[in-house]
């Protein structure tokens, strides 16, 4: 019997009717056409399929879609803003942190969850967060460097934003 699923994916609400055994990865890839999330194993052991659910990195192949009913999900398609890439995405490009790109959305989404929690991780902390993420192409070092670079970019962006906010506050116009 199909059941109703309400989720918000990349800011868009979706109402779907699905078989209860449907995995989140299937909903994303097959029902919503979000093929940026990849599947590279059948044993929950590669983390290629990682997405962010309410701020947490989750393997979308290892969770039923109904388990995230009512939750907010971000996939790799939801990171970029209008014209510009997200700083993590840009850092991955500038540091050659992917080759074939197949594991990349998982790496990027896990990085997103990590940097939201820990804005200045060390090499070892990054390795701890990304340890389950298999990559056959890069040898990981360039991913690690991209994550540290992304952290710097995010910090710079934040600093800029708070500076701007401070300036507007000082000029007496106040924030809207």
């Amino acid at each position, binding site marked *: 019997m199909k059941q109703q699923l309400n989720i918000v994916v990349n800011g868009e609400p979706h109402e779907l009717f699905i078989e209860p055994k449907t995995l989140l990865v299937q909903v994303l890839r097959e029902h919503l056409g979000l093929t940026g999330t990849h599947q590279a194993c059948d044993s929950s052991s590669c983390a290629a399929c990682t997405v962010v659910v309410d701020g947490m990195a989750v393997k979308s192949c290892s969770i039923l879609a109904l388990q995230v009913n009512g939750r907010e999900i971000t996939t790799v398609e939801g990171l970029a803003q209008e014209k510009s890439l997200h700083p993590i995405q840009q850092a991955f490009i500038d540091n050659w942190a992917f*080759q*074939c790109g*197949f594991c990349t959305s998982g790496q990027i989404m896990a990085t997103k969850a990590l940097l939201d929690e820990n804005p200045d991780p060390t090499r070892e902390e990054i390795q701890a967060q990304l340890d389950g993420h298999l990559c056959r192409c890069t040898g990981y070092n360039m991913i690690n460097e991209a994550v540290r670079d992304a952290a710097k970019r995010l910090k710079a962006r934040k600093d800029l934003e708070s500076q701007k906010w401070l300036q507007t506050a000082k000029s007496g116009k106040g924030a809207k």
Partner: protein
Amino acid sequence: MKEFSIIGKPTPNVDGPAKVTGEAQYTIDMTLPHMLYGKLLRSPYPHARILSIDTSEAEKLPGVKAVITGKDTPGGKWGLWRRFRELSDQQALATDKVRFIGDPVAAVAATTEEIAEKALDLIEVDYEPLPAVFDPIEAIKDDAPMVHEDFPSNINATRHIEWGDVDDAFAKADYIREDRFVLEAAHPCAMEVHNSLASYDKGTGRLTVWTSTGSPYFVQLNLAEALKMREGDIRVIKPHVGGHFGGKNSTMPDAVNAAILSMKTGRPVKIVFNRDEEFTTTEHRTAQHMALKLGLKKNGEIVAFEVKAMTNGGAYTGLGATTLYLTGTFITMPYKIPNYRYDGVRTYTNIVWGTSIRGFGAVPGKYCSETQLDRAAKDLGVDPLEIRRLNAVAPGYTAPGQYTFESCGIQPCIEKMVVRVKEKWPTIEKDEGIGYCGFAYMSGGIFNWIDTPYAYSSAHIKVNWDGTVDLYSQAADVGQGHNTVAAMICAEELGIGIEDIRLHMGDTAHAYTDLGAWGSRETLMNGNAIKDAASQVKQKLIDIARLKLGENIAYDLVARNKRIFLELRPERGLSYYDLVKDAIRQNDGVPLTGTGHYTPHNKGMISPAYGMGIMAIKAKVDRGTGHVTARDVLVVHDSGQIINPLGARGQVEGSIHMGLGYGLCEEMPMDQGMLLNPEFVDYKILRTRDMPEIEILEVPTYEPNGPFGAKEAAEATIAPAAPALANAVYQACGAEFFSNVLKPEKVLKAIRAREAKNNAASQAKE
């Protein structure tokens, strides 16, 4: 050295935005309207005769649109050794017998994957199990079961290489040692599994196939053979590919059966292997036995070398016969070997077959030769780096009848290593050791066992009114970054920007032939073809500029920064964009085009150019547990003129990852032909925590056969990782290894063996 605007500058991946946003489409991401899902029924036996197959129940299942067995296929056999027709041994579905666990016997197309899977369960196959053979030593026996009729003693391919007078040189050597090795199989483990989508148009009789491949051309010609169609009626498109590593050269049953099912049903059919199928039925790095005999002078100079190899080929040929050949070649590099003999035999066995995995030929062979060299050095009291320096080749070195190194930076690489290693690791801890390994690898193969009548690589460019360039080639970016290299070479030659180039790659219908991504061939071979095409257009623009500028004909014009100008008077020049408009106007409105090609001639048997260098690994051994840790890696590398430093570094890092896996943890244990670890849970590839940091020092040379002096960067550095690691352990504790996977129990055993040897030696002294 020449100044470049684009070559040599770190350039982000041209596919980057697509790959980081999820926009990049891989075959596995594709669907077509009305598409069916295909699945393959596979043999549970390593060797069995098929007595009967009953598909009637499966056909009745609602949602099933077609069920086929061997007799429903066009029956063409295919392979990559087309020069030897009898080695075209693959087929869509087994007809008479199955040859390994996983050999496909039937295929289903259904409206969903689930239904297709259910239908497989309803197919009844009656097998008569046959005696099977799993090891080359067993396979080559006179009374061994025959995997293929007409191949007595399962001899699939042999290779002999010989130069100099080996026996005489051994007779005169000061020191001789013999060692025997067993090398394990390893899986390429591309993250995107093999999968294909086929769409047959009944009206026109034409077929289109999207597939995760390293060579759309190979798939096209293999499909033509399998389906008994004309190559030209088949279009193969390579979307983004989620990893290759040598496992995606052969055309596999996914592409062929998707095509046959599409022909039967008139609907598009997609077949995707699951990870288990990927491990158990797709190609891997061949397991083999090797025996090496090395003759040296007292000072460590090599005088004679002899190598014997028996490889566990598996059920079919793939590029495994090429691997057998190259094993005998790369094992000699980059050293002067005045007298050399190699004999290799590849045996058919009842396991999934081995082929051309990354660094093919070099990886098992170098493991043996470089660990043997360290033992010999120790016996003679020669420093391990010194013995490599002493024997390293110089530019212009020729191995008689085999290969010549034109650009060759191995000596400067070793010199730099000597200096850097002292700075980097002035002291080492207890139970740490530093191991070395020299290496060299081809920049694309010269051999043509595929028997192509076409140029090895070609490229076509079209320059539009607004100056943008469309670049067409079948060359394959499989993740290594060739698209970026292609755009850089094209832009450099025309003196324009990467943003001016639009790529149309990997489509057999829209581009001229390139043999694909294997043997590190794309940078040199496709790069030369692209440069040729671009230079034709550049010449047209220069001709027009010369006319318009009215300068002395002796003055040289160059294309750079989107202008064409006098090399010595840069202010005198014209805009590239204006010149393009003039050229098109002058050409009756036809866009500018150039068609370039490249086929090596008179460059020996192997390759026009070789990447090379030396690697050092610092490793630590835990004497209590046997656990080995690779702590730090240093590579000094001659990759010619680097086209894209970012991409080149990525290739080296990735190679070392795979190479260390070969040395530490990757193996494919089998029981009676059944793979015991067909999931990432059990098949261990190195994780981010396992990876040491890697320092790469480039010692650039100029390679005359490569575009802008470039040569390979993708594979040379995989082979040295495992032997350098084993040598580090040898230096740390004297443990000797004759097999590649340094699992703790093996290391412990080797440490105990060493201790026993030492004790015996000291007792003997007393």
